[in-house]
């Protein structure tokens, strides 16, 4: 199926000095107008200058400016002679989303919703830096970093079947705990099982529409059912890994003859000692993030069972990263695919699509902003040629944090959400204002473009009943 031409905005290599490949944006007219209001275009053109970049660099419909890479950017570098860039992954390594589904109809929990949300807020620490409930020794932390969620099965914090529906089974094999600095370990040690601040959240949701009932059936989703969406990442540990390696690569780049339009794109060849050390540390931080979401899942399951008994069982539907670099094969060539604010979206035929989802494609989880819908999509086989098997990661910001706070104070945002029947547990009114729905692009529009381009297909829409925010 051809991509509608009006949804493609492409810049040739002549658009800016040093571009090695074209840069392509997927957006409709309204999203393209919003994208043009910040520095996303210049940032993606800068990414197109990186050594070893191949094919085309892509921006998803939810793209917005970041630092170095735009958020919503995808770039693939040849593994043999291309670079790896910590900025192409982002500070929150393996920030991602997981979806849990219950067998409960929403009516069953409404009478307990307020108490349930506040108990979740107590059991799952939220704000940045808050200590979690799982304290780790050095040896235990190293096992988290190297083994990921496999270690949590041994600890009784994960079901074995959870691994079947977690990207990479929650454990990247290239992880090297020794490449993660002492400082990063210090920051992460007591943060396993915490949400963090900013746009991270935990939501209790209701499945309210099924655009594809067949695929929804395979995922075990039915209309009116209660689900839980968790959006968080690798916390201080991942941030420190990125900080450490941006600094290192910025210092050693001249040794490799690399000059860049933006120092935050700092990089070295993947095959270099520095590149290999970053890759090993990034994989370890990614494993930490999957464990973080898994420990939160364990806490959420405990709370649901306390409130609802056996009917409160929660089944993991899927867990997917949207800040990561992965080694993948395209056209017989091994590439290092950087996804910064972009979600992997493999089709039914891809060998990494979980066995139980081979009939429909890999699930893609798109969190909306507070008060708006979230989406479940599935990847397509055609996407391999459209964006290295990638799609959007959310609604994408359209308004700065200051502008959001100026537009509406946090207490008003809280009142409006509560007027919609959404229970809110958030200690900071300021952060509530910064993350208000109007600060984001229209998720419905973003997902519509994704579906029309063929990056992924819509399966289910969920809307919030209650939200726990950092």
């Amino acid at each position, binding site marked *: 199926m051809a991509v509608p031409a009006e949804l493609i905005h492409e810049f040739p290599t002549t658009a800016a000095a040093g571009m090695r490949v074209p840069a392509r944006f997927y957006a409709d007219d309204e999203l393209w107008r919003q994208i043009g209001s910040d520095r996303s275009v210049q940032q993606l053109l800068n990414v197109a200058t990186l050594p070893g970049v191949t094919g085309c660099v892509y921006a998803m419909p939810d793209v917005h400016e*970041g630092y170095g890479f735009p958020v919503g950017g995808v770039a693939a570098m040849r593994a043999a002679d291309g670079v790896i860039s910590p900025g192409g992954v982002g500070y929150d390594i393996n920030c991602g989303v997981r979806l849990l589904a219950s067998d409960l109809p929403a009516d069953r929990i409404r009478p307990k919703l307020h108490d349930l949300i506040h108990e979740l807020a107590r059991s799952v620490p939220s704000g*940045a830096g*808050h200590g979690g409930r799982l304290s780790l020794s050095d040896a235990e932390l190293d096992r988290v970093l190297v083994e990921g969620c496999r270690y949590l099965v041994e600890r009784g914090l994960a079901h074995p079947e959870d691994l079947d529906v977690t990207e990479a089974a929650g454990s990247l094999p290239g992880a090297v705990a020794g490449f993660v600095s002492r400082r990063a370990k210090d920051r992460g040690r007591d943060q396993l099982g915490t949400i963090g601040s900013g746009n991270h959240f935990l939501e209790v949701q209701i499945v309210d529409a099924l655009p594809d009932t067949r695929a929804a059936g395979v995922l075990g989703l039915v209309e009116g059912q209660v689900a839980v969406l968790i959006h968080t990442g690798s916390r201080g540990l991942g941030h420190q890994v990125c900080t450490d390696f941006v600094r290192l690569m910025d210092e050693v780049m001249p040794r490799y003859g690399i000059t860049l339009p933006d120092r935050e794109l700092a990089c070295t060849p993947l095959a270099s000692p520095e590149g290999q050390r970053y890759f090993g540390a990034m994989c370890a931080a990614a494993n930490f993030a999957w464990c973080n979401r898994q420990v939160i899942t364990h806490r959420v399951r405990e709370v649901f069972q306390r409130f609802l008994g056996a009917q409160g069982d929660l089944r993991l539907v899927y867990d997917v990263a949207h800040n990561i670099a992965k080694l993948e094969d395209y056209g017989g060539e091994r590439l290092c695919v950087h996804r910064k604010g972009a979600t992997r979206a493999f089709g039914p035929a891809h060998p990494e699509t979980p066995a139980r989802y081979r009939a429909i494609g890999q699930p893609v989880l798109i969190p909306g902003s507070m008060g708006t819908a979230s989406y479940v999509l599935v990847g397509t086989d055609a996407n391999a040629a459209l964006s290295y098997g990638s799609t959007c990661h959310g609604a994408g910001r359209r308004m700065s944090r200051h502008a959001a706070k100026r537009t509406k104070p946090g207490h008003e945002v809280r009142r409006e959400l509560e007027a919609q029947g959404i229970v809110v547990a958030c200690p900071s009114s300021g952060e509530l204002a910064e993350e208000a729905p109007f600060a984001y692009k229209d998720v419905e529009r973003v997902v519509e473009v994704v579906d029309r381009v063929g990056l992924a297909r819509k399966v289910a829409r969920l809307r919030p009943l209650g939200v726990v925010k950092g």
Partner: protein
Amino acid sequence: MRDDAAPVREPVARDVGHTAEVELLARGRTFGDLLAAAGRGLGELSLGGSIPTASGEWRLVQVQAGDRAALVVNWLNELIYLAEVDRWIATEFTVERATDTDFAVRARGVTVDVPPSRVKAATLHGLEIAERDGLLQAHVILDV
């Protein structure tokens, strides 16, 4: 802060239209002043806009880097690390030594029960240190 090295007081965090992050603006008569102002601005952001009176022991904090821009970033990342791990937010500074590649400062601040929840990293993105109206200034994009 010693009077002869007092930083120029400005609003240190402001909206410059970045869609997702926060920009810190720091100014100083000297590079050492600028670094101290950046540290104070970060403390103010971390504490939600108000700075309580500093107390406790003075601590020596030192950072190095290959150039001025990297030194600004390394300095702020050092303070972010201390805030998160030691739960100590530096707010008052006495510059001991400031070159383009080396910064040593004595600092006092406040300890907090809960580590600050706002700033997670300082970035090199678009960071330039320039002289304007007789003052050195730097704009630093912070990951929040």
